[in-house]
């Protein structure tokens, strides 16, 4: 049950969007598809939501084949596309009512499922959807995708373009929906959101890099990472890149994540080097690898 994906490949003319994708999503799981723009996330979503047909491979949603049983699947899934796809000229309430009606249900019938989410936008129920803020649009879109009580929920980059507070709230809502027994497949380019999923698949250039729980994925990171910071960020990066033993240098928030080629690396050596480069207020501290680090390592 859940979602089964076996050897899915998909090409558009000469561009290979997906290459031999295989993974399963268990019943009731919150599964994250993590990868940058253009990795093939949306294409995979469209195949699973019966909007596209794969060139090779098979996939099934709760046992229904995405190609043969597409009508059945369209009754039991909820889909929130990456682009805001509601009617901008309809009000919040009219949008919700419309989607309830075409799925053959009413707002009242499934109100308890969307209550937590809808209650936050209900004060604006007479406002046109086009006039809502990003966070509210996304809550409305989620309500519309949930109104028919789907068994499986597909959310394609639901938090792109949404403020950090709304993003946090959104993930809390997903957790609550999961507790109600809904299987959720969510894609995101934000690595920090990956940690909130039960399991994640890292995807790039149409290939799955790794599938595991977020904790396991971090554990597999092969090197020790150091947070380095100094007064002049730009010069710091330049200097680190000049350092002959560097393995990896990339900015990470207010720090630079640094890894060294050597196993017996001594941070003091690096400190001396950086001081010679006229950098001031240098700090070098060990840090935990994140999913982003793992991703960068795997994507090499």
């Amino acid at each position, binding site marked *: 049950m859940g979602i089964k994906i076996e050897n899915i490949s998909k090409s558009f003319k000469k561009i290979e969007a997906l290459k031999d994708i295989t993974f399963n999503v268990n019943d009731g799981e919150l599964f994250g598809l993590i990868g940058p723009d253009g990795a093939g996330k949306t294409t995979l979503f469209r195949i699973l939501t*019966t*909007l596209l047909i794969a060139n090779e491979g098979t996939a099934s949603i709760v046992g229904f084949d995405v190609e043969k049983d597409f009508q059945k699947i*369209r009754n039991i899934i909820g889909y929130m596309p990456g682009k805001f796809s509601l009617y901008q000229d309809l009000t919040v309430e009219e949008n919700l009512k419309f989607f309830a009606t075409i799925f053959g249900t009413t707002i009242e019938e499934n109100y308890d499922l969307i209550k937590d989410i809808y209650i936050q936008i209900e004060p604006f129920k007479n406002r046109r959807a086009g006039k809502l803020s990003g966070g509210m649009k996304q809550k409305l879109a989620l309500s519309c995708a949930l109104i028919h009580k789907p068994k499986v929920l597909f959310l394609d980059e639901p938090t792109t373009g949404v403020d950090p507070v709304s993003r946090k709230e959104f993930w809390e809502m997903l957790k609550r929906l999961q507790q109600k027994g809904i299987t959720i497949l969510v894609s995101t380019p934000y690595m920090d959101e990956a940690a909130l999923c039960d399991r994640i698949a890292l995807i790039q250039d149409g290939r799955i890099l790794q599938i595991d729980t977020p904790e396991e994925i971090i554990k597999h990171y092969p090197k020790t990472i150091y947070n380095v910071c100094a007064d002049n960020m730009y010069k710091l990066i330049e200097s680190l890149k000049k350092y002959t033993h560097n393995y990896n240098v990339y900015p990470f928030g207010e720090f630079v994540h640094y890894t060294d080629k050597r196993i017996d690396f001594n941070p003091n050596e690096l400190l001396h080097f950086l001081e010679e480069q006229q950098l001031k207020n240098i700090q070098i501290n060990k840090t935990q690898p994140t999913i982003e680090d793992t991703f960068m390592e795997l994507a090499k």
Partner: protein
Amino acid sequence: MGLMKRFIGFIKKEFYHIFRDKRSLFILFGMPIAQIMLFGFAVTNEINNVDIAILDHSKDVTTKEIINKISASKYFSVSNYIRNEAEIETAFKKGKIKAVLVFEKDFSKKIGKENIATIQVIADATDPNTANTISNYTSAILQKYQQEINTTIKIPYQIIPKTRMVYNPELKSVFMFVPGVMTIILMLVSAMMTSISITREKELGTMEILLVSPLKPSQVIVGKVVPYIFLSIINAVIIVLLSIFVFKMPIQGSLILLGIESILFIITSLSLGILISTISASQQTAMMISLMALMLPTILLSGFIFPITSMPVVLQVISNIIPAKWFIIILKGIMLKGVGLSFVWKETLILVIMTLFFIGLSIKKYKIRLE
């Protein structure tokens, strides 16, 4: 939860779209009224109170009488008397005068002695149609005058053509425009508006959600089309009412037949609209295709403005595939000639076949997925 309820929900949503978009409301209701008024009042082939000038070299009884006859007619008003040939050019260049009548010297005397006198009609042919009409009308007035003064004299042979204009005896051009404008408006509203409204869903991404719903593609299409059938019927009624009450155009034939034929043509146009929406990805493309591939041929090749019989053979053949041509024939038949279905069944059948063909093609082209 019945199918009907889903369907009604969908139609309700369509009406929200239409009534909340000022642009589509204008195209739907502003344009038809504006067009029919424009064609009814402004665009006309008739001549009324055309300003003419007179250059009378004899100024005698006969010329006075002729001038009186001419200025008494509703077609002309004599606005200027000029004194010599040199002034003709200036009179025309001022632009107000469309024709000059020149009476030769000793007009009455010549008629009395030689039985022949000439009037020269100089018409401004920058607008050839008007120039032609002016010269025809003046000839007619002169001929009538000639007959009046000739009653006493017997002419051995005489052939008199007695013309009678049937179906539109007063030659009102609005009678010709109403069927054409009605055709264009129904085509515009039905084909362009549906194709735009379907492609808008594609463009905004809502089609993606509609596809991933239990609604079948046919239900989506029918839901899209029904509101426009309804609105187009209202438009047809408005146009017919305007032509009856504003332009005093009598509808000779059966109103019911007129209604049914109009609905048939609306459906033909809608099926074309659906077809356009299946091949265009954006509202802009849909609009361009509607305008270029539908509106232009409808205006130019349907016989609405230019008679089909005077077109080159190639265009005459092409005109056969334009649905509007057949609908205009039907409309003229019912509105002006008062014919029944027995006279227009062939045209009706052609429209039915075209409609079925377009619907079949759009079903074949319609995608149940994104590609």
